[in-house]
């Protein structure tokens, strides 16, 4: 078999636009029907936010994989491996290993102590108002930056997939994606959103599996030959070694450590992932969900290794970089090379579905946090009528949807990695220390939680604002200005330890102590599941 590859004709991609749109429309139609059917039982707040706690561990695990494997994972990692070789693979590892933090330290204990949101757990034995407000603010901040990244990603993808390259056309597509997302969440609530995630996760994993099998078949199922092919097309054997992207200087090396820290500690603190643990009836099912999602996500990231090197070998880094959509086009171009327009259409539709589903999951999390934490527990002081609370949540969905559309249009063409890194760093800095301390440290106090959450949130955002991602470099958001006094593009290595330190300092300096009865209740509940809310009966 000859390993000479014909060049992918990027111009020919335009002919497949109608097909792409057709497959995408089919996906939307099928999922809309499912969302309508799922919505018939949305009566209470537990139905709307937590899908009546009626999903099984394996269903929820698939939905978690759907939430987690965003377009950034599929298109971003495949592209990173295709261009930067081994350094791209290190992202996959960080994203996967991070799940052990969720499995061992967070998932089950959180399911046992909370009801709807992350703030339920954080404020369990501390002072309600200040802790809930802080947790809701950091939830909204993480969701908003994550949303912007997804919407901006949608915009830049469209230029390749649908052949729309003008600003107005892309803005229109962002509006369509945003409007669809608002409809899913308004009608379907958590149950509808979860079904969309499940379908999307299965399509994505199946599509990636087919392409992986195909690439491996071309190389006679010999991984070494595939790697050799990638090195040969790149004319650079260093694509197989670490350091191509991050080994340039001491600063970039430190930057990779910082990113590695944010990735491994950020996942277990992402509000939209945490909220998924409430959709199952028991802690044991929460554990099963994480196990199921670890297998699916791990399998998928193994596929991305083959797909990334496959794209490097069969399509070539130069063709990928030159295509509209740049690095993100590696997976679709590989699909086109392997299976022609039909496979490209399928993979493109899956990529769109991915963005739609992840955006819906983020929106419902943000809406739940606003309605449940800020409206019901702070503004209405815990006396809100559940129907009113759900109504507030639905209105919040519309507001967040519109904000995401507007933000997405303006963030279109911006550096998407910046927004994703900020979301992970903010989650790891603002949320994780308080989650861990309140679950495991008896003496932890309200002051410690407040210092840690606001300190982590502020330091992460300020350091990113002062980093080369925002100014001072050619790739910056504001290339003309230079106020980048912080040299790293990811703040994790500073802001995460700082947030842990502030949580400790705030606690030891706090003259007040917390209610030991509440601490006992939280500890007993978290480990035994006593009194944890069961599935609602329909």
């Amino acid at each position, binding site marked *: 078999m000859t390993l000479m590859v014909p060049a992918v004709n990027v111009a020919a991609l335009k002919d497949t636009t109608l097909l792409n749109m057709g497959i995408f429309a089919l996906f939307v139609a099928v999922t809309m029907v499912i969302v309508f059917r799922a919505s018939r039982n949305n009566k209470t707040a537990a139905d709307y936010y937590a899908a009546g706690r009626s999903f099984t561990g394996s269903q929820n695990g698939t939905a978690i994989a759907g939430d987690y494997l965003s377009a950034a994972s599929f298109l971003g990692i495949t592209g990173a491996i295709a261009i930067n070789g081994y350094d791209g693979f*290190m992202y996959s590892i960080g994203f*996967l290993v991070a799940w052990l933090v969720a499995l061992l330290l967070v998932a089950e204990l959180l399911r046992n102590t909370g009801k709807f949101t992350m703030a339920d*757990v954080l404020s369990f034995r501390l002072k309600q108002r200040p802790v809930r407000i802080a947790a809701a603010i950091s939830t909204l901040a993480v969701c908003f930056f994550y949303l912007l990244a997804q919407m901006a990603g949608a915009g830049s993808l469209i230029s390749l997939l649908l052949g729309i390259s003008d600003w107005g056309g892309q803005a229109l597509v962002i509006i369509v994606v945003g409007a669809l997302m608002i409809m899913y969440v308004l009608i379907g609530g958590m149950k509808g959103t979860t079904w969309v995630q499940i379908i999307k996760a299965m399509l994505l994993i199946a599509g990636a599996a087919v392409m992986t099998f195909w690439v491996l078949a071309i190389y006679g199922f010999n991984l070494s030959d595939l790697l050799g092919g990638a090195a040969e097309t790149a004319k650079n054997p260093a694509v197989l070694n670490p350091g191509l992207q991050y080994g340039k200087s001491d600063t970039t090396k430190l930057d*990779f450590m910082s990113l590695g820290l944010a990735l491994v500690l950020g996942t277990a603190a992402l509000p939209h992932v945490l909220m998924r643990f409430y959709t199952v009836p028991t802690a*044991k099912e929460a554990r099963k969900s994480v196990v199921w999602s670890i297998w699916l996500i791990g399998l998928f990231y193994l596929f991305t290794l083959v797909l990334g090197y496959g794209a490097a070998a069969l399509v070539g880094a130069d063709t990928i970089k030159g295509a509209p959509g740049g690095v993100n086009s590696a997976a679709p171009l590989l699909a086109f090379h392997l299976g022609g327009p039909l496979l490209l259409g399928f993979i493109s539709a899956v990529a769109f579905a991915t963005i739609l589903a992840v955006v819906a999951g983020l929106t419902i999390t943000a809406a739940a946090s606003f309605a449940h934490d800020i409206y019901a527990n702070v503004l209405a002081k815990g006396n809100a009528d559940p129907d009113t609370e759900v109504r507030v949540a639905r209105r919040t969905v519309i507001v967040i949807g519109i904000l995401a559309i507007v933000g997405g249009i303006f963030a279109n063409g911006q550096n998407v990695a910046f927004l994703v890194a900020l979301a992970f760093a903010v989650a790891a800095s603002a949320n994780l220390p308080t989650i861990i301390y309140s679950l495991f440290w008896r003496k932890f106090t309200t002051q410690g939680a407040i210092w840690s959450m606001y300190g982590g949130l502020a330091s992460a955002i300020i350091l990113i604002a002062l980093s080369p991602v925002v100014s001072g470099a050619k790739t910056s958001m504001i290339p003309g200005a230079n106020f980048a006094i912080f040299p790293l593009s990811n703040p994790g290595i500073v802001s995460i330890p700082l947030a842990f330190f502030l949580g400790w300092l705030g606690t030891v300096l706090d003259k007040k102590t917390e209610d030991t009865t509440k601490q006992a209740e939280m500890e007993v*509940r978290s480990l035994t599941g006593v009194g944890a809310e069961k599935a609602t009966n329909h």
Partner: protein
Amino acid sequence: MGHDAQGTDAAASVDFKEVQSTEQFQELRKRHRSFVFPMAIAFLLWYFAYVLLADYAVGFMSTKVWGNINIGLILGLLQFVSTFAITGWYVSYSNRKLDPIASEIRHGIEGHEFDKHGNPVSGTAK
């Protein structure tokens, strides 16, 4: 008022401080922590050792072992293997050492358990 995270439930009138001080609960707490803490430290050390090697020991990681497969790739794939292995280990540990004692304590407090459809079930089997 205060946290209403749980709503009404059978455990509302329980003296949690008393439950917390029982030998049975202390044993559950010890078993849980003595597994998850060392395991969390171990996998984080192993992960950061790998990141440091990839970051600062490029020559070592680039050593070819078999064909084009180098030490870096093998260590990377071993991160996948260790993640899957720790997951399996934790599940089996929970099933054997944590779940039985946790449900015993729970039954002692609630007196009964619900299945996932909300119907009461008797016994420890699920």
